[in-house]
């Protein structure tokens, strides 16, 4: 499997695992589903929890200024951000 296919799937798995989303499976999250507000309804602490998981999974450091609505808007935007860093 090429990296371009795997990243969104890896991110979805991390979302479910690190945020303790019971009853949710990674394949239930669409690439474009809004993560915050409507959609998954995550909050700021969830975002930070996801950051720790992403840093560990992808071996990157995410700066505080990068943690915002644009990058974290959906799995798709996150995936683009991460691929740009790895």
């Amino acid at each position: 499997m090429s990296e371009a296919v795997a990243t969104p799937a890896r991110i979805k798995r991390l979302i479910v695992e690190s945020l303790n989303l019971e009853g949710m499976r990674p394949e239930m999250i669409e690439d474009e589903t809004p993560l915050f507000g409507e959609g998954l309804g995550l909050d700021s602490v969830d975002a930070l929890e996801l950051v720790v998981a992403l840093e560990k999974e992808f071996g990157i450091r995410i700066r505080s200024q990068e943690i915002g609505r644009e990058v974290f808007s959906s799995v798709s935007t996150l995936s683009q951000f991460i691929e740009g860093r790895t």
Partner: protein
Amino acid sequence: MLTGLGTLGASGVGADRLAEALAAGRPVSREVDRSAGYHPPEGARRACLMPAVQLGSWLSAGEARRMSPPSKLAVAAARMALRCAGLPGTQEEATAVVVATAFGPSTNTEVLLKQILCEGPESASPSLFMESVANAPAAQIAIAARARGPSLTVCQREAGPLLALGRAAGEVARGRARRALAGSVDEMTPLLHALLDRFGALARPGADGQEAARPFDRRRNGFLAGEGATMVVLESEEALRERGGRALARVLGWGSAFDLTAPVTGWGRGAGTLARGLLRTLRRAGFEPGDVDLVVSGASGSRTGDLLEAQVLREAWGKIPLPPIVAPKSVTGEYGGGLLGAAVLAAAGSAFGPTAGFEETDPELGIVPHDGSPLPPPEIVLVTSLAAGGAAAWLVLGRA
């Protein structure tokens, strides 16, 4: 006025389970998971741990997702207490929240420390951290009940629960809140259990292989660690009258003192100081020892703790004969609010069975706790707690 009680512990979920266990004089203890290897061999193996419980009727999955174990227990107990009081789950007026915890959210703290010390600081989980602070349970109760009054967390080990009650009653008495949610929560992790054992605090298996808390007994050798949550609703008499509710008991007085001879992790020899503190508490409430119908004692089976408790009671009562003394920690274990739950039940007229674990009087203590014979409903109840490290707190409850 004490108008609602919510409690969860080793005996199960709800005041009825606790009342049954107390009436039968039957402790519920379970094997502690010792697989991590923290426990000393030949050490304590059991604790009054909670059974696996479904809290779904008290907490939604969304609410509970990030809550630490004590927060879940505390919110469930608070909602139970509000329901018991016939009050809605969310408060319109400024309700105070005062929660005591001896050890705070231990699971979260332990996992966080492991992350930081073993994986590295960058691995620290923000949601575990926010729920590792001692005031997490109180904060979660406030969010759940929209309680916008003063929010306090008391950390004074075994004396915490009665201090929390006194503090909450004070907020209501001084008119700073019309209502308060007050109580105690603790969780007993395997590591915490092992550490308490290494400090020599816990009951260890006797010659018969049994591990038991034996309050005031000659062969007592430590307490049974416990966990759980107990929350009560306190209201001003006026507020209660206005809404036409019913009370379980009255809070008549509270007080505390400090025994400076106590070592940091144990009990001291300051019976004189503590007896004066006990008498001050009674007298400020307008009572003398002879007025007390029942003592709900925090005696737990600790060798030095129970000795001190006995000395304090005997010194305070002097020549007057002591009233019946029940020691609920023989059933509920130490920590988690079992004493508080039992005290409210006592003031509401609940029956107490024979004191579990008590078989032989200790001549040095000269205290014979309650044998299970029927007791008339008490008018005045004195609740006692002596903390390791020196703090002591008392509460005076009256019939509703």
